[in-house]
């Protein structure tokens, strides 16, 4: 019968004392401490007691020598689970960046370290260097490496912003673009449409204004395109024999295909619509991202070894089962192209057209009956696009209805400002309750005024209807743009794919594999409606997942 095992978190003097006590009692003790050395922050204060001389807690030496104690420093507990009266822990050790065997405590490293940071062991009173001893007595040196810079951490694709902006500062534009393309193939498009959360996070904003990260990306991409520098196509000489099917030709699928090709895997991309690009092509209006620019970029991506089959709707022109048979892995990136209904009366009347459908029709060049007044419902970026496109299509008046106030609108503020500036009229605290019509055609929208109540689960104040405030806005066209969800009707039920109640796939967040091995998914179809760069980012992660999957399969 082996001894009972005990885990103690924290290597400060109390933790050390507890570990010794338990070990003396015959337990097998594991001591886990997140910082590189035992002793805790308080130890250096013992100097105040015994002035001048180094004072080391005798327990510290004892705990290191005790045969029953295993010490794991510089490590965090990631996961703990209780089972059958015992615990299982997953511990992640941070990289040790100093070889303590070789270190002889000369402190030369500290004297030359260029990185100064507030000394967090000393309440930020002084500076310490990035390489530092944990506390002067134990002399456990380590390089404290912080996480990514805030901009990079905020970016869904974790672009190495610091490097590519710095390379632009050095005038090395092509290298800068190459740096971006290490993680994102869509520099031209994302440089135009991204709502750039990185800039919101940028620390420079505290000084004056954030670095224009997004526009800088656009600049280097435009520089290459406008100077007719051929973009590099860097793929291995030989491709693997496995083939991957990409369903949908949007940002997620194309990013996935791009990174697969770079790793030497060919893919075939099935697109239901006549042209590739997904939401880039059919959701984003021309004035934000022009089709020739987008096509320039997509053609370059396709040239890496992605075969494109347009006008091929899976489930209609080719069955999902056939694809499953023919390809070694499947990536589903069909996006979210179905508008969510308002769930009000009269929604079936002629003149009601969903936001994404409306944008797609305009982008496909279909004629729009742009007469009279149009009402757009919603406060997101799709609503703003729909409103601004409507105005360009020639409606006499464009009204945006939103049930909360401008402050709560999820759309990017510059989009709202631009829409207002262009002449779109906003009506806040208004909710639709019925589409009124005559002879099957809509003639107006009955609305209700709202007021803001208590905050809801999303943290925004919940709109509460004001009794008896109904009124009708006369309009011939209504564009609801409240949200979208994926259309997964092509997925056969017998395939066993788990679909969430938001009509999205549930995937493993590391590999982006669905519950069915070999089927991967990312983009709006996995996250629900989200920004393009997240789709690109997850497409890349899915490509990594697919590569791992194929390699594991191949090695069997």
């Amino acid at each position: 019968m082996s001894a009972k095992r005990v885990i103690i978190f924290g290597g400060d003097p109390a933790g050390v004392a507890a570990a010794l006590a338990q070990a003396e009692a015959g337990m097998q003790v594991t001591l886990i401490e997140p910082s590189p050395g035992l002793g805790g922050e308080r130890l250096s204060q013992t100097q105040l007691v015994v002035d001048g001389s180094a004072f080391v807690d005798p327990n510290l030496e004892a705990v290191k020598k005790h045969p029953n104690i295993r010490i794991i420093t510089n490590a965090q507990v990631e996961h703990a689970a209780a089972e059958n009266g015992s615990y299982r822990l997953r511990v992640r050790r941070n990289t040790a960046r100093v070889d303590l065997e070789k270190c002889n405590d000369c402190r030369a490293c500290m004297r030359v370290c260029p990185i100064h940071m507030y000394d967090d062991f000393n309440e930020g009173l002084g500076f310490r260097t990035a390489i530092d001893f944990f506390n002067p007595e134990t002399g456990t040196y380590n390089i404290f490496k912080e996480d990514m810079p805030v901009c990079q951490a905020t970016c869904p694709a974790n672009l190495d912003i610091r490097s590519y902006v710095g390379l632009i500062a050095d005038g090395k534009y092509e290298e800068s673009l190459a740096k971006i393309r290490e993680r994102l193939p869509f520099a031209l498009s994302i440089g135009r449409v991204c709502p750039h959360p990185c800039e919101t996070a940028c620390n420079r904003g505290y000084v004056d204004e954030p670095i224009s990260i997004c526009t800088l990306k656009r600049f280097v991409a435009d520089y290459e395109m406008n100077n007719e520098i051929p973009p590099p196509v860097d793929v291995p000489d030989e491709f693997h024999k496995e083939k991957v099917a990409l369903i949908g030709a949007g940002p997620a699928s194309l990013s996935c295909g791009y990174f697969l090709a770079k790793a030497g895997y060919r893919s075939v991309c099935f697109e239901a619509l006549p042209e590739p690009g997904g939401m880039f092509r059919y959701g984003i209006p021309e004035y934000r991202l022009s089709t020739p620019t987008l096509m320039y970029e997509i053609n370059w991506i396709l040239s890496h070894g992605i075969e494109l089959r347009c006008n091929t709707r899976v489930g209609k022109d080719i069955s999902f089962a056939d694809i499953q048979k023919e390809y070694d892995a499947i990536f589903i990136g069909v996006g979210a192209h179905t508008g969510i209904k308002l769930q009000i009366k009269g929604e079936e009347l002629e003149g009601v057209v969903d936001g994404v459908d409306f944008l797609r029709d305009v982008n496909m060049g279909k004629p729009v009956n742009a007469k009279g007044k149009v009402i757009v419902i919603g406060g997101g970026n799709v609503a703003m696009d729909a409103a601004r496109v409507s105005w360009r299509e020639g409606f006499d008046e464009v009204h945006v209805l939103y049930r909360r106030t401008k402050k709560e609108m999820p759309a990017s503020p510059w989009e709202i400002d631009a829409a207002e500036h262009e002449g779109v009229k906003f009506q806040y605290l208004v909710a639709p309750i019925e589409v009124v019509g005559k002879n099957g055609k809509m003639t107006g929208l009955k609305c209700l005024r709202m007021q803001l109540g208590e905050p809801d689960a999303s943290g925004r104040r919940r709109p509460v209807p004001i009794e008896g405030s109904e009124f009708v806005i006369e309009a011939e066209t209504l564009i609801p743009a409240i949200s979208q969800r994926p259309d997964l009707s092509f997925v056969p039920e017998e395939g066993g794919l788990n679909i969430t109640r938001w009509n999205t796939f549930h995937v493993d967040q590391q590999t982006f594999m669905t519950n069915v091995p070999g089927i991967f998914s990312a983009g709006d179809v996995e996250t629900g409606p989200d920004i393009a760069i997240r789709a690109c980012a997850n497409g890349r992660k899915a490509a990594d997942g697919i590569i791992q999957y194929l390699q594991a399969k191949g090695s069997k």
Partner: protein
Amino acid sequence: MQYTTDVRIIRLMCTGRVDPPMLADAFMKGADGVMVVGCHFGDCHYITGNYQGKIKVGLASRTLDYVGLNPRRVSFSQCSSAEGERFVNMVSAFDQTIRELGPLGNAERVALPELKDKLAIAKTVLSREKIRWVVGKFTEFTTTGNKYGERFTEHEMWRTLDTIIMDEVATYEILRELENAPASAKEMAAKLKLPPPHVLKYVLALQRRGFVGLAEIDGTSPRYQIVDPMAKEEAA
């Protein structure tokens, strides 16, 4: 080919030999301008020496600029031994610049007697290991990258060096003050025209490195002094 008689040439084997403190030294001793002239890039007799020269001169001029010197007084130019005409033009143009600026102290942010003290600090900073270590890694970090394979841009390296210049100048100014007599953070802040919290941080960092210790407590404010003989040497 004639040029001004105000220029004196000091022969070095290569611009790579230019050690940043030499520039500070020249200004301290009263030069009004320093030109470093080397081979053209890619045509250096010492292969890559001139690249190192450019980085070192860049560092020196940034440091001198930070302590108050007009950076136009430092020039790094290139000229081959077959380009006499070009050399004359360069010297004449630089001479013109210096004439516009006038004698040292005339076009500076800091007036003369004080400027010399500041230049002495700059010379110390440029001779010390921290800045030299980082500038020595400049080429490696911008071309092949560090141990983790991260490559830095020149822009980043210069930004890092700029912050080191700032820290080191403050640090050595404080050490010099303490060399004279123990002082409190507030007293030094007033003298060095630095915000007192900054001075305190530098003092605490010095204390952590074991250079500075508590001398006495005067009322409520502690006075610091140099405790490590090595630090005295550094300050000297």
